[in-house]
Protein backbone atom coordinates (compact mmCIF):
# COMPACT_ATOMS: atom_id res chain seq x y z
CA UNK A 1 0.00 0.00 0.00
CA UNK A 2 2.74 2.37 0.95
CA UNK A 3 4.47 1.49 -2.27
CA UNK A 4 1.38 2.35 -4.30
CA UNK A 5 0.93 5.70 -2.56
CA UNK A 6 4.57 6.40 -3.06
CA UNK A 7 4.37 5.52 -6.75
CA UNK A 8 1.25 7.63 -7.28
CA UNK A 9 2.73 10.61 -5.54
CA UNK A 10 5.91 10.27 -7.57
CA UNK A 11 3.87 10.04 -10.75
CA UNK A 12 1.84 13.08 -9.68
CA UNK A 13 4.96 15.07 -8.98
CA UNK A 14 6.37 14.12 -12.34
CA UNK A 15 3.07 14.92 -14.01
CA UNK A 16 2.80 18.31 -12.35
CA UNK A 17 6.34 19.27 -12.99
CA UNK A 18 6.54 17.81 -16.44
CA UNK A 19 3.16 18.70 -17.89
CA UNK A 20 3.56 22.47 -18.00
CA UNK A 21 6.95 21.99 -19.62
CA UNK A 22 5.48 19.81 -22.33
CA UNK A 23 2.53 22.09 -22.80
CA UNK A 24 4.93 24.90 -23.63
CA UNK A 25 8.03 24.22 -25.72
CA UNK A 26 10.79 22.34 -24.00
CA UNK A 27 13.72 24.71 -23.93
CA UNK A 28 16.03 22.86 -21.56
CA UNK A 29 16.76 19.30 -22.62
CA UNK A 30 19.08 17.43 -20.31
CA UNK A 31 19.54 13.90 -21.56
CA UNK A 32 22.95 13.69 -19.88
CA UNK A 33 21.45 14.40 -16.47
CA UNK A 34 23.80 17.22 -15.66
CA UNK A 35 21.16 19.32 -13.93
CA UNK A 36 18.74 18.63 -11.12
CA UNK A 37 15.05 18.88 -11.88
CA UNK A 38 14.90 22.09 -9.91
CA UNK A 39 17.76 23.61 -11.86
CA UNK A 40 16.12 22.60 -15.13
CA UNK A 41 12.93 24.32 -14.06
CA UNK A 42 14.67 27.52 -13.10
CA UNK A 43 16.47 27.64 -16.44
CA UNK A 44 13.26 26.89 -18.34
CA UNK A 45 11.57 29.71 -16.48
CA UNK A 46 14.36 32.10 -17.42
CA UNK A 47 14.19 31.06 -21.10
CA UNK A 48 10.39 31.31 -21.01
CA UNK A 49 10.61 34.91 -19.81
CA UNK A 50 12.94 35.79 -22.66
CA UNK A 51 10.46 34.25 -25.10
CA UNK A 52 7.57 36.23 -23.61
CA UNK A 53 9.48 39.49 -23.95
CA UNK A 54 11.25 39.10 -27.30
CA UNK A 55 9.71 36.09 -29.04
CA UNK A 56 13.16 34.56 -29.07
CA UNK A 57 13.75 30.90 -28.14
CA UNK A 58 16.83 30.14 -26.04
CA UNK A 59 17.30 26.36 -26.14
CA UNK A 60 19.78 24.39 -24.06
CA UNK A 61 20.61 20.87 -25.16
CA UNK A 62 22.80 18.75 -22.87
CA UNK A 63 23.88 15.32 -24.12
CA UNK A 64 26.30 12.53 -23.43
CA UNK A 65 26.52 10.95 -26.87
CA UNK A 66 28.84 11.12 -29.84
CA UNK A 67 27.82 13.27 -32.80
CA UNK A 68 29.94 13.67 -35.87
CA UNK A 69 29.15 17.34 -36.37
CA UNK A 70 28.08 19.35 -33.32
CA UNK A 71 27.09 22.19 -35.64
CA UNK A 72 24.79 20.06 -37.84
CA UNK A 73 23.36 18.39 -34.75
CA UNK A 74 22.59 21.68 -33.01
CA UNK A 75 21.13 23.30 -36.11
CA UNK A 76 18.98 20.29 -36.98
CA UNK A 77 17.73 20.01 -33.42
CA UNK A 78 16.65 23.64 -33.47
CA UNK A 79 15.10 23.47 -36.94
CA UNK A 80 13.14 20.30 -36.19
CA UNK A 81 12.04 21.25 -32.68
CA UNK A 82 9.37 23.69 -33.78
CA UNK A 83 11.11 26.67 -32.24
CA UNK A 84 10.64 30.30 -33.20
CA UNK A 85 12.34 31.71 -36.28
CA UNK A 86 14.54 33.86 -34.05
CA UNK A 87 16.56 32.01 -31.49
CA UNK A 88 19.70 30.32 -30.26
CA UNK A 89 20.49 26.77 -29.28
CA UNK A 90 23.37 26.00 -26.94
CA UNK A 91 24.53 22.43 -27.37
CA UNK A 92 26.83 20.84 -24.79
CA UNK A 93 28.10 17.29 -24.95
CA UNK A 94 30.02 15.84 -22.02
CA UNK A 95 30.91 12.81 -24.18
CA UNK A 96 33.81 14.57 -25.84
CA UNK A 97 33.25 18.02 -24.32
CA UNK A 98 31.94 19.67 -27.45
CA UNK A 99 29.94 22.84 -27.39
CA UNK A 100 28.17 24.70 -30.12
CA UNK A 101 25.92 27.76 -30.20
CA UNK A 102 23.77 28.02 -33.34
CA UNK A 103 21.74 31.14 -34.00
CA UNK A 104 18.75 31.67 -36.29
CA UNK A 105 16.89 34.61 -37.75
CA UNK A 106 17.42 37.95 -36.02
CA UNK A 107 19.70 36.27 -33.48
CA UNK A 108 22.28 35.89 -36.24
CA UNK A 109 22.67 39.67 -35.91
CA UNK A 110 21.94 40.24 -32.21
CA UNK A 111 24.08 37.27 -31.18
CA UNK A 112 26.81 37.74 -33.72
CA UNK A 113 29.77 35.39 -33.77
CA UNK A 114 31.96 37.85 -31.91
CA UNK A 115 29.28 38.26 -29.25
CA UNK A 116 29.00 34.47 -28.92
CA UNK A 117 32.74 34.44 -28.30
CA UNK A 118 32.29 37.00 -25.54
CA UNK A 119 29.46 34.98 -23.98
CA UNK A 120 31.51 31.81 -24.03
CA UNK A 121 34.40 33.68 -22.48
CA UNK A 122 32.20 34.53 -19.48
CA UNK A 123 30.98 30.98 -18.83
CA UNK A 124 34.09 29.11 -19.85
CA UNK A 125 35.52 28.70 -16.39
CA UNK A 126 32.27 27.36 -14.95
CA UNK A 127 32.01 24.82 -17.72
CA UNK A 128 35.58 23.73 -17.18
CA UNK A 129 34.72 23.01 -13.58
CA UNK A 130 31.58 21.13 -14.67
CA UNK A 131 29.41 23.68 -12.93
CA UNK A 132 26.80 23.53 -15.63
CA UNK A 133 24.00 25.23 -13.76
CA UNK A 134 26.15 28.23 -12.93
CA UNK A 135 27.29 28.47 -16.51
CA UNK A 136 23.82 28.18 -17.98
CA UNK A 137 22.17 30.47 -15.48
CA UNK A 138 24.52 33.22 -16.59
CA UNK A 139 24.29 32.17 -20.29
CA UNK A 140 20.60 33.05 -20.55
CA UNK A 141 20.84 36.59 -19.08
CA UNK A 142 23.93 37.27 -21.18
CA UNK A 143 22.00 36.36 -24.33
CA UNK A 144 19.03 38.42 -23.18
CA UNK A 145 21.27 41.42 -22.70
CA UNK A 146 22.49 41.30 -26.27
CA UNK A 147 19.00 40.60 -27.65
CA UNK A 148 17.71 43.64 -25.79
CA UNK A 149 20.59 45.81 -27.06
CA UNK A 150 19.86 44.87 -30.68
CA UNK A 151 22.37 44.20 -33.42
CA UNK A 152 25.72 45.91 -33.06
CA UNK A 153 26.56 48.21 -35.92
CA UNK A 154 30.23 47.58 -35.97
CA UNK A 155 29.78 43.83 -36.19
CA UNK A 156 27.50 42.61 -38.94
CA UNK A 157 25.83 45.26 -41.09
CA UNK A 158 28.83 47.45 -41.87
CA UNK A 159 31.14 44.44 -41.97
CA UNK A 160 28.76 42.79 -44.41
CA UNK A 161 28.55 45.99 -46.45
CA UNK A 162 32.31 46.27 -46.78
CA UNK A 163 32.45 42.60 -47.70
CA UNK A 164 29.76 43.10 -50.35
CA UNK A 165 31.64 46.07 -51.78
CA UNK A 166 34.85 44.05 -51.87
CA UNK A 167 33.06 41.68 -54.23
CA UNK A 168 31.03 44.25 -56.16
CA UNK A 169 33.82 46.74 -56.92
CA UNK A 170 35.96 44.30 -58.91
CA UNK A 171 32.79 43.18 -60.69
CA UNK A 172 32.01 46.84 -61.52
CA UNK A 173 35.53 47.26 -62.90
CA UNK A 174 35.31 44.17 -65.06
CA UNK A 175 31.91 45.24 -66.41
CA UNK A 176 33.31 48.72 -67.21
CA UNK A 177 36.25 47.13 -69.01
CA UNK A 178 33.92 44.90 -71.01
CA UNK A 179 31.72 47.86 -72.00
CA UNK A 180 34.67 49.92 -73.26
CA UNK A 181 36.23 46.88 -74.94
CA UNK A 182 33.01 46.42 -76.86
CA UNK A 183 33.27 50.05 -77.96
CA UNK A 184 36.84 49.35 -79.01
CA UNK A 185 35.73 46.35 -81.00
CA UNK A 186 33.35 48.57 -82.96
CA UNK A 187 36.36 50.61 -84.11
CA UNK A 188 37.28 47.91 -86.57
CA UNK A 189 34.44 46.39 -88.52
CA UNK A 190 36.58 44.59 -91.10
CA UNK A 191 36.07 40.82 -91.15
CA UNK A 192 36.87 38.18 -93.70
CA UNK A 193 33.88 36.36 -95.16
CA UNK A 194 33.44 32.97 -93.56
CA UNK A 195 31.95 31.32 -96.63
CA UNK A 196 30.52 31.91 -100.08
CA UNK A 197 26.87 31.37 -99.14
CA UNK A 198 25.84 34.51 -101.05
CA UNK A 199 26.98 32.90 -104.28
CA UNK A 200 25.40 29.45 -104.05
CA UNK A 201 23.21 29.06 -107.14
CA UNK A 202 19.64 28.68 -105.92
CA UNK A 203 18.67 25.04 -105.57
CA UNK A 204 22.11 23.77 -106.56
CA UNK A 205 22.75 22.02 -103.26
CA UNK A 206 22.36 18.42 -104.33
CA UNK A 207 22.80 15.73 -101.69
CA UNK A 208 23.39 12.55 -103.64
CA UNK A 209 23.91 10.22 -100.73
CA UNK A 210 23.08 10.37 -97.04
CA UNK A 211 23.91 7.76 -94.47
CA UNK A 212 23.04 7.82 -90.79
CA UNK A 213 24.56 4.67 -89.32
CA UNK A 214 24.08 3.62 -85.72
CA UNK A 215 27.45 2.70 -84.23
CA UNK A 216 27.16 2.03 -80.54
CA UNK A 217 25.42 2.98 -77.36
CA UNK A 218 26.48 3.74 -73.82
CA UNK A 219 24.31 3.69 -70.71
CA UNK A 220 25.01 5.43 -67.44
CA UNK A 221 22.93 5.18 -64.28
CA UNK A 222 22.97 7.77 -61.52
CA UNK A 223 21.08 7.27 -58.23
CA UNK A 224 18.36 9.83 -57.73
CA UNK A 225 19.52 12.11 -54.91
CA UNK A 226 17.18 12.18 -51.93
CA UNK A 227 17.43 15.85 -51.16
CA UNK A 228 19.50 17.15 -48.23
CA UNK A 229 19.56 15.18 -45.01
CA UNK A 230 18.56 17.92 -42.60
CA UNK A 231 14.86 18.58 -42.26
CA UNK A 232 15.49 22.27 -41.87
CA UNK A 233 15.89 22.77 -45.57
CA UNK A 234 17.62 25.92 -46.62
CA UNK A 235 17.40 27.74 -43.34
CA UNK A 236 20.57 29.62 -42.55
CA UNK A 237 22.35 29.80 -39.26
CA UNK A 238 25.14 31.63 -37.56
CA UNK A 239 27.17 30.09 -34.80
CA UNK A 240 30.29 29.28 -32.84
CA UNK A 241 31.59 26.10 -31.31
CA UNK A 242 34.53 24.32 -29.80
CA UNK A 243 35.65 22.28 -26.80
CA UNK A 244 35.33 23.12 -23.13
Amino acid at each position, binding site marked *: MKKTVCLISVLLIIAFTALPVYAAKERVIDTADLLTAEEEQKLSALAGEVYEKYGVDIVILLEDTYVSSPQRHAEDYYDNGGYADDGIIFYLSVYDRDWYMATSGSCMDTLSDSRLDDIFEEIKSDLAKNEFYDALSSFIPLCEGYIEAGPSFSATPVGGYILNMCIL*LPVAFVVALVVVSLEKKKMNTAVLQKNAN*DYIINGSVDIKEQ*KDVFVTSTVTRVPISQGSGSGGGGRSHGGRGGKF
Partner: protein
Amino acid sequence: METLEYRCPNCNAYLVFDPKSGKMKCDYCLSDFTVDEVKENNDTRGKVHNEGHGHTHSEEQTNGDYFCYSCPSCGGEIIGDSTTAATECPFCENPTVITQRLSGEFKPDYVIPFKITKKEAVSALEKLYGGKKLLPNAFTRDNRVKKVTGMYVPYWICDCEASGTVSYDATRVHTFSSGKYITTRTDFFKVVRRGTVAFDNIPQDGTTKLEGIHTESIEPYDYSEMIPFSNEYLSGYFADIYDVNSEDVLGRVAERAKASVKESFKETVIGYATVSESESNIDITKGDIHYALLPVWMLNTNWNGKTYTFAMNGQTGKVVGDLPVDKKKFWKRTAMFFGIFAAVAAVVAFFI
Protein backbone atom coordinates in the same frame (compact mmCIF):
# COMPACT_ATOMS: atom_id res chain seq x y z
CA MET B 1 51.00 56.09 -123.40
CA GLU B 2 47.54 56.14 -124.91
CA THR B 3 45.09 58.08 -122.82
CA LEU B 4 41.51 59.16 -123.25
CA GLU B 5 39.35 62.00 -122.03
CA TYR B 6 35.72 62.85 -122.62
CA ARG B 7 34.77 66.40 -123.60
CA CYS B 8 31.42 68.14 -123.47
CA PRO B 9 30.36 69.01 -127.07
CA ASN B 10 28.71 72.16 -125.77
CA CYS B 11 31.44 73.77 -123.71
CA ASN B 12 34.48 71.52 -124.09
CA ALA B 13 34.75 70.96 -120.34
CA TYR B 14 35.31 67.35 -119.30
CA LEU B 15 32.53 64.82 -118.84
CA VAL B 16 32.42 62.50 -115.83
CA PHE B 17 30.20 59.55 -115.01
CA ASP B 18 27.40 60.57 -112.62
CA PRO B 19 26.30 57.80 -110.19
CA LYS B 20 22.85 59.26 -109.59
CA SER B 21 21.65 59.56 -113.20
CA GLY B 22 23.91 56.88 -114.65
CA LYS B 23 24.84 59.37 -117.38
CA MET B 24 27.93 61.26 -118.46
CA LYS B 25 27.63 64.73 -117.07
CA CYS B 26 29.35 68.07 -117.64
CA ASP B 27 29.81 69.76 -114.28
CA TYR B 28 30.40 73.06 -116.03
CA CYS B 29 27.32 73.55 -118.25
CA LEU B 30 25.26 70.76 -116.64
CA SER B 31 24.57 69.01 -119.97
CA ASP B 32 24.30 65.25 -119.73
CA PHE B 33 24.54 62.39 -122.21
CA THR B 34 23.89 58.68 -121.96
CA VAL B 35 26.91 56.44 -122.16
CA ASP B 36 25.70 55.20 -125.56
CA GLU B 37 25.37 58.75 -126.87
CA VAL B 38 28.91 59.46 -125.81
CA LYS B 39 30.14 56.32 -127.52
CA GLU B 40 28.43 57.10 -130.82
CA ASN B 41 28.81 60.84 -131.01
CA ASN B 42 32.06 61.95 -132.58
CA ASP B 43 32.01 65.26 -130.70
CA THR B 44 31.79 63.71 -127.27
CA ARG B 45 33.72 60.56 -127.91
CA GLY B 46 36.83 60.32 -125.91
CA LYS B 47 39.73 62.20 -127.36
CA VAL B 48 42.65 59.90 -127.70
CA HIS B 49 46.04 61.25 -126.89
CA ASN B 50 48.84 59.17 -128.09
CA GLU B 51 51.99 60.50 -126.64
CA GLY B 52 55.06 58.54 -126.14
CA HIS B 53 56.75 56.36 -128.65
CA GLY B 54 59.67 58.42 -129.81
CA HIS B 55 58.10 61.60 -128.51
CA THR B 56 59.92 64.45 -126.83
CA HIS B 57 58.83 63.46 -123.33
CA SER B 58 61.86 61.80 -121.97
CA GLU B 59 60.26 61.21 -118.58
CA GLU B 60 57.48 59.25 -120.11
CA GLN B 61 58.48 55.79 -119.33
CA THR B 62 56.54 52.68 -118.59
CA ASN B 63 59.48 50.66 -117.42
CA GLY B 64 59.66 50.09 -113.71
CA ASP B 65 56.74 50.68 -111.42
CA TYR B 66 55.91 54.26 -112.34
CA PHE B 67 55.03 56.24 -115.38
CA CYS B 68 54.42 59.89 -116.01
CA TYR B 69 52.96 61.85 -118.82
CA SER B 70 51.76 65.38 -119.39
CA CYS B 71 48.13 66.29 -118.92
CA PRO B 72 46.43 66.88 -122.29
CA SER B 73 44.50 69.78 -120.74
CA CYS B 74 47.04 71.77 -118.81
CA GLY B 75 50.35 70.15 -119.58
CA GLY B 76 50.93 69.31 -115.92
CA GLU B 77 52.74 66.13 -115.10
CA ILE B 78 50.58 63.17 -114.15
CA ILE B 79 52.25 60.36 -112.28
CA GLY B 80 50.77 56.93 -111.94
CA ASP B 81 52.05 53.53 -110.98
CA SER B 82 52.17 50.32 -112.95
CA THR B 83 48.52 49.46 -112.32
CA THR B 84 46.87 52.86 -112.78
CA ALA B 85 44.12 52.66 -115.42
CA ALA B 86 42.21 55.84 -114.65
CA THR B 87 43.28 58.89 -112.72
CA GLU B 88 42.94 62.63 -112.60
CA CYS B 89 45.42 65.40 -113.17
CA PRO B 90 46.57 66.62 -109.75
CA PHE B 91 46.69 70.19 -111.10
CA CYS B 92 43.51 70.66 -113.12
CA GLU B 93 41.57 67.58 -111.95
CA ASN B 94 41.10 66.62 -115.57
CA PRO B 95 39.89 63.00 -115.58
CA THR B 96 41.94 60.70 -117.73
CA VAL B 97 41.45 57.09 -118.74
CA ILE B 98 44.63 55.29 -119.69
CA THR B 99 43.22 53.11 -122.43
CA GLN B 100 46.50 51.43 -123.17
CA ARG B 101 46.32 49.86 -119.75
CA LEU B 102 42.83 48.56 -120.43
CA SER B 103 43.59 46.62 -123.55
CA GLY B 104 44.45 43.04 -124.31
CA GLU B 105 44.43 40.75 -121.31
CA PHE B 106 43.84 43.75 -119.07
CA LYS B 107 40.56 44.70 -120.71
CA PRO B 108 37.88 44.00 -118.10
CA ASP B 109 34.90 41.86 -119.08
CA TYR B 110 32.45 43.67 -116.86
CA VAL B 111 31.95 46.76 -114.76
CA ILE B 112 29.46 47.72 -112.09
CA PRO B 113 29.17 51.53 -112.35
CA PHE B 114 29.17 53.72 -109.24
CA LYS B 115 25.72 54.25 -107.73
CA ILE B 116 26.81 55.99 -104.54
CA THR B 117 27.85 59.63 -104.94
CA LYS B 118 30.88 61.19 -103.33
CA LYS B 119 28.58 63.24 -101.10
CA GLU B 120 26.99 60.06 -99.77
CA ALA B 121 30.41 58.51 -99.23
CA VAL B 122 31.61 61.56 -97.30
CA SER B 123 28.56 61.55 -95.04
CA ALA B 124 28.95 57.79 -94.47
CA LEU B 125 32.52 58.42 -93.40
CA GLU B 126 31.47 61.26 -91.11
CA LYS B 127 28.86 58.97 -89.61
CA LEU B 128 31.54 56.32 -89.03
CA TYR B 129 33.67 58.87 -87.16
CA GLY B 130 30.74 60.36 -85.29
CA GLY B 131 29.94 58.91 -81.89
CA LYS B 132 33.27 57.09 -81.70
CA LYS B 133 34.31 58.09 -78.21
CA LEU B 134 37.66 56.31 -78.45
CA LEU B 135 38.80 57.99 -81.67
CA PRO B 136 41.88 60.23 -81.17
CA ASN B 137 40.84 63.87 -81.65
CA ALA B 138 43.70 64.59 -84.05
CA PHE B 139 42.66 61.76 -86.37
CA THR B 140 39.77 63.74 -87.84
CA ARG B 141 41.31 67.19 -87.46
CA ASP B 142 42.55 67.63 -91.02
CA ASN B 143 39.08 67.26 -92.48
CA ARG B 144 40.35 64.43 -94.57
CA VAL B 145 36.82 63.16 -95.21
CA LYS B 146 36.78 65.22 -98.41
CA LYS B 147 39.69 63.18 -99.73
CA VAL B 148 37.66 59.99 -100.00
CA THR B 149 38.16 58.70 -103.54
CA GLY B 150 36.07 56.67 -105.93
CA MET B 151 38.04 53.71 -107.13
CA TYR B 152 37.25 50.93 -109.57
CA VAL B 153 38.88 47.90 -108.01
CA PRO B 154 39.87 44.91 -110.18
CA TYR B 155 38.07 41.72 -109.18
CA TRP B 156 38.12 38.14 -110.33
CA ILE B 157 34.56 36.85 -110.47
CA CYS B 158 34.74 33.09 -110.24
CA ASP B 159 32.21 30.37 -110.95
CA CYS B 160 32.91 26.95 -109.53
CA GLU B 161 31.39 23.66 -108.60
CA ALA B 162 32.14 21.77 -105.43
CA SER B 163 31.62 18.08 -104.91
CA GLY B 164 32.57 16.07 -101.90
CA THR B 165 31.86 13.98 -98.88
CA VAL B 166 31.63 15.14 -95.28
CA SER B 167 31.44 12.74 -92.32
CA TYR B 168 30.14 13.55 -88.87
CA ASP B 169 30.08 11.91 -85.47
CA ALA B 170 26.66 12.48 -83.99
CA THR B 171 24.92 11.48 -80.78
CA ARG B 172 21.40 11.18 -79.50
CA VAL B 173 20.75 11.21 -75.77
CA HIS B 174 17.78 9.65 -73.97
CA THR B 175 17.27 10.27 -70.28
CA PHE B 176 14.65 8.55 -68.18
CA SER B 177 14.19 7.74 -64.51
CA SER B 178 13.33 4.26 -63.41
CA GLY B 179 13.09 3.37 -59.75
CA LYS B 180 15.97 4.85 -57.82
CA TYR B 181 18.11 5.66 -60.87
CA ILE B 182 18.29 8.22 -63.63
CA THR B 183 19.39 6.36 -66.72
CA THR B 184 21.11 8.13 -69.62
CA ARG B 185 21.54 6.29 -72.87
CA THR B 186 23.80 7.86 -75.52
CA ASP B 187 23.54 6.51 -79.06
CA PHE B 188 26.47 7.18 -81.39
CA PHE B 189 26.01 7.57 -85.12
CA LYS B 190 28.31 7.87 -88.08
CA VAL B 191 26.69 10.33 -90.50
CA VAL B 192 27.85 10.82 -94.08
CA ARG B 193 26.70 13.33 -96.69
CA ARG B 194 27.87 13.30 -100.30
CA GLY B 195 26.78 15.82 -102.89
CA THR B 196 27.49 18.85 -105.00
CA VAL B 197 26.99 22.61 -104.73
CA ALA B 198 27.36 25.12 -107.57
CA PHE B 199 28.60 28.67 -107.09
CA ASP B 200 28.18 31.69 -109.25
CA ASN B 201 30.31 34.86 -109.25
CA ILE B 202 32.38 34.56 -106.09
CA PRO B 203 34.31 37.86 -106.09
CA GLN B 204 37.94 38.08 -105.04
CA ASP B 205 39.97 41.24 -105.48
CA GLY B 206 42.90 41.14 -107.87
CA THR B 207 44.88 44.01 -106.39
CA THR B 208 47.64 44.26 -103.84
CA LYS B 209 46.57 47.80 -102.99
CA LEU B 210 43.61 46.75 -100.86
CA GLU B 211 43.54 44.16 -98.11
CA GLY B 212 41.27 41.19 -98.73
CA ILE B 213 39.70 41.78 -95.36
CA HIS B 214 38.35 45.12 -96.59
CA THR B 215 37.15 43.99 -100.01
CA GLU B 216 35.45 40.94 -98.49
CA SER B 217 33.85 43.08 -95.79
CA ILE B 218 31.93 45.19 -98.28
CA GLU B 219 30.51 42.22 -100.17
CA PRO B 220 28.12 41.41 -101.71
CA TYR B 221 27.67 43.28 -104.98
CA ASP B 222 24.43 43.09 -106.91
CA TYR B 223 25.44 41.43 -110.15
CA SER B 224 22.14 42.20 -111.85
CA GLU B 225 23.61 45.67 -112.48
CA MET B 226 26.87 44.34 -113.86
CA ILE B 227 27.31 45.35 -117.51
CA PRO B 228 29.91 44.79 -120.23
CA PHE B 229 32.93 46.99 -119.65
CA SER B 230 33.20 50.34 -121.34
CA ASN B 231 35.80 53.09 -120.75
CA GLU B 232 33.16 55.78 -120.19
CA TYR B 233 32.27 54.61 -116.66
CA LEU B 234 35.81 55.29 -115.51
CA SER B 235 35.78 59.00 -116.33
CA GLY B 236 36.04 60.98 -113.11
CA TYR B 237 37.26 58.05 -110.99
CA PHE B 238 40.43 56.22 -110.25
CA ALA B 239 40.86 52.72 -111.58
CA ASP B 240 43.45 50.03 -111.28
CA ILE B 241 44.17 46.99 -113.38
CA TYR B 242 44.85 43.69 -111.65
CA ASP B 243 48.27 42.84 -110.31
CA VAL B 244 47.21 39.52 -108.79
CA ASN B 245 46.57 36.75 -111.30
CA SER B 246 43.28 34.88 -111.30
CA GLU B 247 45.10 31.65 -110.42
CA ASP B 248 46.34 33.25 -107.22
CA VAL B 249 42.88 34.02 -105.88
CA LEU B 250 41.43 30.57 -106.55
CA GLY B 251 42.81 29.21 -103.27
CA ARG B 252 40.76 31.66 -101.29
CA VAL B 253 37.72 31.10 -103.50
CA ALA B 254 37.97 27.35 -102.87
CA GLU B 255 38.37 27.93 -99.14
CA ARG B 256 35.13 29.92 -99.00
CA ALA B 257 33.28 27.48 -101.26
CA LYS B 258 34.33 24.55 -99.05
CA ALA B 259 33.06 26.33 -95.95
CA SER B 260 29.71 26.83 -97.68
CA VAL B 261 29.53 23.19 -98.72
CA LYS B 262 30.13 22.11 -95.13
CA GLU B 263 27.43 24.47 -93.87
CA SER B 264 24.91 23.33 -96.49
CA PHE B 265 25.57 19.67 -95.75
CA LYS B 266 25.46 20.13 -92.00
CA GLU B 267 22.01 21.69 -92.28
CA THR B 268 20.77 18.29 -93.41
CA VAL B 269 22.18 16.52 -90.35
CA ILE B 270 19.24 16.95 -88.02
CA GLY B 271 17.66 15.22 -85.05
CA TYR B 272 20.89 14.81 -83.06
CA ALA B 273 21.98 16.17 -79.70
CA THR B 274 25.56 16.77 -80.86
CA VAL B 275 27.10 16.81 -84.31
CA SER B 276 30.81 17.19 -84.95
CA GLU B 277 32.58 16.97 -88.25
CA SER B 278 35.09 14.14 -88.36
CA GLU B 279 36.29 14.14 -91.95
CA SER B 280 35.78 16.05 -95.14
CA ASN B 281 36.93 15.64 -98.69
CA ILE B 282 35.74 18.38 -101.05
CA ASP B 283 36.94 19.00 -104.59
CA ILE B 284 36.48 22.34 -106.30
CA THR B 285 36.21 22.45 -110.06
CA LYS B 286 36.76 25.94 -111.36
CA GLY B 287 34.35 27.29 -113.90
CA ASP B 288 34.36 30.59 -115.77
CA ILE B 289 36.46 33.38 -114.36
CA HIS B 290 35.62 36.93 -115.36
CA TYR B 291 37.56 40.10 -114.84
CA ALA B 292 35.44 42.99 -113.58
CA LEU B 293 35.94 46.45 -112.16
CA LEU B 294 33.77 47.02 -109.10
CA PRO B 295 33.20 50.42 -107.47
CA VAL B 296 34.65 51.23 -104.02
CA TRP B 297 34.79 54.53 -102.16
CA MET B 298 37.89 54.52 -100.04
CA LEU B 299 40.19 56.52 -97.85
CA ASN B 300 43.49 55.43 -96.39
CA THR B 301 44.78 57.41 -93.43
CA ASN B 302 48.23 57.02 -91.96
CA TRP B 303 48.26 57.37 -88.22
CA ASN B 304 51.27 56.65 -86.01
CA GLY B 305 52.86 54.49 -88.65
CA LYS B 306 49.80 52.41 -89.35
CA THR B 307 47.32 52.66 -92.22
CA TYR B 308 43.64 52.79 -91.38
CA THR B 309 41.26 52.06 -94.21
CA PHE B 310 37.72 53.19 -94.82
CA ALA B 311 36.00 51.36 -97.66
CA MET B 312 32.45 51.57 -98.90
CA ASN B 313 30.71 49.47 -101.50
CA GLY B 314 30.15 51.99 -104.32
CA GLN B 315 27.01 50.19 -105.38
CA THR B 316 25.23 49.13 -102.17
CA GLY B 317 26.75 51.61 -99.70
CA LYS B 318 27.97 48.93 -97.27
CA VAL B 319 30.70 50.44 -95.09
CA VAL B 320 33.74 48.95 -93.42
CA GLY B 321 36.39 50.76 -91.48
CA ASP B 322 39.16 50.39 -89.00
CA LEU B 323 39.92 53.29 -86.74
CA PRO B 324 42.69 53.93 -84.23
CA VAL B 325 41.96 53.76 -80.51
CA ASP B 326 43.17 56.50 -78.18
CA LYS B 327 44.65 54.63 -75.20
CA LYS B 328 44.15 57.55 -72.83
CA LYS B 329 40.50 57.79 -73.83
CA PHE B 330 40.13 54.04 -73.42
CA TRP B 331 41.19 54.16 -69.78
CA LYS B 332 39.35 57.39 -69.08
CA ARG B 333 36.12 55.87 -70.30
CA THR B 334 36.77 52.68 -68.37
CA ALA B 335 37.26 54.79 -65.24
CA MET B 336 34.06 56.71 -65.99
CA PHE B 337 31.98 53.56 -66.39
CA PHE B 338 33.66 52.08 -63.32
CA GLY B 339 32.56 55.17 -61.38
CA ILE B 340 28.97 54.73 -62.52
CA PHE B 341 28.87 51.00 -61.82
CA ALA B 342 30.61 51.46 -58.47
CA ALA B 343 27.95 54.00 -57.45
CA VAL B 344 25.25 51.50 -58.43
CA ALA B 345 27.11 48.79 -56.51
CA ALA B 346 27.29 51.03 -53.43
CA VAL B 347 23.49 51.28 -53.45
CA VAL B 348 22.91 47.63 -54.28
CA ALA B 349 25.26 46.51 -51.49
CA PHE B 350 22.81 47.99 -48.97
CA PHE B 351 20.11 45.58 -49.97
CA ILE B 352 21.94 42.30 -50.20
